[in-house]
């Protein structure tokens, strides 16, 4: 390694400082919200809260969880995510395995037809009318079914399947195994990292589901966290209802604390899986980047 010139050293330092600043800007807003959610009313109103709670209190969380609506929403989010991911993975596997087999009839045709749906779609209204005519409005079917297979994720998995050596398939055939055996005994065990990655991809999508919840789910007891938090942010009266707050309560808690607490409740599960997300996501993205 050569000695670095003065200019290169300066470049390296400036580069690192700029990146450090941008990194901080990505994390600090969340830290600020955590601080707000634990701060007292007087501290927030007088603008003392920065990155650390002032006048620590857990009142905002107590108020939120006193009422069962936020717990119901949390439970709904969990159900939507778990069932959704299971369905997504099943259908993504069933789609990508046949399309990765060179001997499949019409493989090229089916692949092109499916990729075409990435470029052109019926759009919002026909999709909405379809869900409505299938009687799925106000059921989670409306959330799970229209997005059963993400074409992008499917292509990632197909690319991975294409990389599995053909000899393994041959040897399974020698032992008398059919396609299902090849899929379940060979492909799936080898693809666990990719399945985990895609499961997380889909999982984040379901946890964050907002628009489809907004247009398809009307019963408040079926709402997920995203919709509930959105309503709390947008309307003080809904916040009062969700938090079961009386005007008296606002003398000790600010709406800001409650909003922040709601947001934090929604972010915490994401933070817990974030280390895995990062590990697998990047792997998944890199597999996808290889043209299949």
């Amino acid at each position: 390694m050569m000695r670095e010139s003065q200019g290169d050293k300066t470049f390296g330092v400036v580069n690192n400082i700029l990146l450090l600043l941008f990194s901080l800007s990505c994390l600090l807003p969340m830290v600020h919200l955590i601080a707000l959610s634990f701060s007292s009313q007087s501290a927030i109103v007088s603008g003392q809260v920065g990155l650390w709670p002032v006048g620590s209190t857990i009142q905002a969380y107590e108020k939120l969880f006193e009422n069962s609506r936020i717990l119901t929403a949390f439970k709904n989010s969990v159900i939507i995510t778990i069932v959704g991911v299971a369905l997504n993975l099943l259908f993504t596997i069933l789609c990508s395995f046949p399309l990765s087999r060179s001997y499949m009839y019409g493989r090229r045709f089916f692949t092109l037809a499916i990729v075409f749906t990435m470029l052109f779609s019926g759009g919002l209204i026909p999709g909405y009318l379809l869900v409505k005519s299938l009687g799925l409005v106000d059921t989670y079917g409306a959330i799970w079914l229209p997005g059963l297979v993400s074409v992008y994720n499917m292509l990632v998995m197909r690319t991975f399947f294409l990389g599995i050596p053909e000899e393994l398939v041959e040897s399974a055939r020698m032992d008398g195994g059919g396609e299902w055996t090849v899929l379940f005994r060979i492909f799936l065990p080898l693809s666990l990292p990719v399945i985990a990655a895609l499961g997380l991809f889909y999982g984040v999508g379901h946890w964050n589901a907002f628009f489809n919840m907004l247009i398809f789910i009307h019963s408040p007891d079926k709402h997920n966290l995203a919709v509930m938090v959105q309503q709390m942010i947008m309307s003080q009266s809904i916040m009062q209802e969700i938090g079961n707050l009386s005007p008296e309560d606002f003398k000790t808690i600010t709406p800001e604390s409650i909003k922040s607490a709601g947001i934090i409740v929604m972010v915490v599960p994401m933070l817990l899986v974030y280390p895995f997300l990062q590990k697998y996501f990047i792997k998944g993205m890199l597999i996808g980047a290889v043209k299949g």
Partner: protein
Amino acid sequence: MFKSRRFQYNIPLFIMFAPIIAYFLIFKFAPMGGLVIAFKNYNFTDGIWGSAWVGLDHFHTLFTNPNMLNILRNTLVLSFLQLVLGFPFPILLALMINEIRRSWFKKTVQTAVFFPHFLNWVIVGGIVITIFSQETGIVNNIMRWLTGDSYPYLYNTGSWLAIFIGSGIWKSAGWGAIIYLAALAGVDQSLYEAAGLDGASRLRQMWHISLPSIRPVIFIILILSIGSIMEVGFDQVYMLQNSAVSQIADVISTWNYRVGITGGRFSLAAALGFFESIIGLILVLTANSIARRFNNGLW
């Protein structure tokens, strides 16, 4: 022929694939057919096929409506700004991350900048509203401390626009950088060594080696983003808009939601959706054919 080995292999394959065919036909291709309601007067009792044809009436209604010009303009302005300001950012970020020498610092930066991608717009919008609020937001607290004055950032079109574009970049830049980072990881290291021996500074190496090596990827991402120039995401606008900025914040997706879903004027909204999809398709195809002339096409 039906005894052939290939045919035998295909039976189980198509048993697996049958639900997939059904899924794509029902949920992807049927709605494409459902677009015919853009040329009909759709109502629930007659259904999609029974409703009366009205030809291009809905398109006529749309484009003679002065409000619609405003919506289209807003959509184009917002997404054009998003593209012009937002597109270079992930590239720059990737080039800069690629220059980090210490691997622990590289990992830390990546961990931080990818994070906002996993937050949905409800959260990001909530953060933005909290931080920029005039009474209690931290930005105005600092402003008041510095200048003694506060400013309604979210209620003024200029600053709202900056916040809108900025929050989009904040959320997506790190994630957008991944694909470029992957491409940069594949660059032959001996190129940098050779350039270094010839006395090229790190900045010049970045410009003459790193950037050209990721050019094909840049083109691919550019084509894809040009295809979505008619789309401004619903969630972001829905979370950030307010009555003071609706003149510039009302876009196709929010109009479609308001008029189509909540207003029940399905045919009219479908006509706009159809228009949007067609323009998007034409844009992708055009961008691709231009890129192909430079040997950087997507297909």
